[in-house]
């Protein structure tokens, strides 16, 4: 290092007054505060836009026929349309209702998450209310092992599980007729089972469990009010 060493003779010996210290810190803080607020204000809109675009892109990738979407809050009390800027009520689940060019409901997209091998695996899954089946899923942020756990994104066989994953409700309408289960690779027998990726069982199970947890509370609440969602508001 070529930095000069501090020269003891040059140091001021007089103690700095408290007032100066506060003034210096305060001044810097003020300056920085202005800086941050300016940055925040000027990026607020582009960031919101970016987020919306990213979300819409992944939602429409699950339901390719979709052209528009609306957000609903689903709780035990029923479904509520969320206008942009409106806050999400507590205890409610967010559902994106996707409509095609003819303003028909093409599907619903919800969020799910469960602990995988490394961290929580967050997925979006698409539910088709007409088939009563899960028809696709997309992985959000995750930290699963590249080449093993992240096969859930790429493994074609695994994706095939979600062409029509049975998610019918039972007779009472209070629960899924068959809980969605992840089974060992090669032993899928029923339409509500997910065939795990060989060698990436833990991540596969996380996806299945996450979707099951989410769907088993969401769908019974959603079904009585499906009519409200049939066409865009």
């Amino acid at each position: 290092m070529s930095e000069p060493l501090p020269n003891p003779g040059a140091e001021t010996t007089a103690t700095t007054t408290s007032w100066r210290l506060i003034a210096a810190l305060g001044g810097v803080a003020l300056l920085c505060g202005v800086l941050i607020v300016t940055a925040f204000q000027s990026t607020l809109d582009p960031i919101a836009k970016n987020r919306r675009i990213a979300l819409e892109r992944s939602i429409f990738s699950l339901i390719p026929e979709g052209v528009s979407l609306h957000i609903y809050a689903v709780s035990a009390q029923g479904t509520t349309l969320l206008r942009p800027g409106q806050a999400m009520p507590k205890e409610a689940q967010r559902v994106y209702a996707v409509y095609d060019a003819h303003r028909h409901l093409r599907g619903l997209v919800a969020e799910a998450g469960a602990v995988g091998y490394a961290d929580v695996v967050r997925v979006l899954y698409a539910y088709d209310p007409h088939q009563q089946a899960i028809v696709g899923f997309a992985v959000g942020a995750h930290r699963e092992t590249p080449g093993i756990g992240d096969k859930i994104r790429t493994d074609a066989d695994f994706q095939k599980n979600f062409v029509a994953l049975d998610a019918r409700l039972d007779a009472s309408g209070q629960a899924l007729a068959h809980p969605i289960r992840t089974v060992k690779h090669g032993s899928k027998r029923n339409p509500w089972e997910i065939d795990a990726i060989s060698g990436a069982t833990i991540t596969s199970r996380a996806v299945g469990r996450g979707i099951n947890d989410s769907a088993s509370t969401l769908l019974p609440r959603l079904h009585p009010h499906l009519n409200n969602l049939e066409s865009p508001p």
Partner: protein
Amino acid sequence: MTELRSAPHERLGVSVESIMLNVVLALLPIALFSIWLYGLSALALLITSVVVCLATERVFNRLSGQSSTLSDWSAMITGILLALVLPPSFPLWMTAVAAVVAMGLGKILFGGLGMNVFNPALVGRAFVQAAFPSAIATWVPSYAPNRFHEFIPTTLTQPLMIPPDITAWVKAVSADAFTGATPLAMWKFQHQLTAPEDLILGIATASVGETSAMLILVCGLYLALRGMLDWRIPVGMMGSAVILASAFHLYNPDFFPPPVFVLLSGGLMLGAMFMATDMATSPVTPLAVWTYAILIGVVTVLIRYFGGLSEGVMYAILFGNALAPLLDRSLPTRVFGRRKPWRVGS
């Protein structure tokens, strides 16, 4: 009087070259048997691994301005051992990568012969295990009828490219129900045991050189009898693995496999005879040697039973390697006329 040598004036006459050459000789039957089992692909794998190991050592010799160190045969041993722990279908270009990593990262980076902390062949193998997890878990049947005039399709994969899917090829060449899983994986994931005679004779699915427990035992015995292999390491390692496996088996015979299966399957035998005994990476003091050997055996069984992988020998040995210098220092020899061997200092 020009000659003024310092005592002793005579030597035993066993040199590094002769030890290494004998290890190469002991590995040859295993290599030949693997060629008999897997044909052209195993041959190509062995040649690639050895040639790339030698070339890497030579290139690094050049770069560091040393004279060639190929004559000590140690690079040759790494080459053969590396080939023996890879699956027979492993693409040649990946083998070359493993060999470069084995020599460069596993040996030369530490300062060359005798200075390396980890067994170079296992470093190479661990690297490709992490880099190409699917290729290293692709298995083919032994005694394929066309093995002497046809390569396994994956062997000749173009450099940097994904090996082709060989499911169809495997179905075509395997006579009976070949599952494409190693005995250990079959036990771990399907809960099926392979017959011990298949393990002994090398019919079970395995890496190139892990197949025949019998042959490995004989070759290891040759070295041990010539005093070029520390018999305590295989004995301690296999002994501890068998004892621990027996305990588990007695506790729950339905879940845990019999100890003979643990002993004969996977790379335990090869690892115990030829990997853990690598002189540079194993301890020297008697207590440390036993501790090291027993530790590797125990860790192997624990990884196999409770880890995410079906085979644990490689990581167990690498773990043992890492501890070896520490063991040597914390478990010193008892000096004649002194007490408390484990306490350094007087």
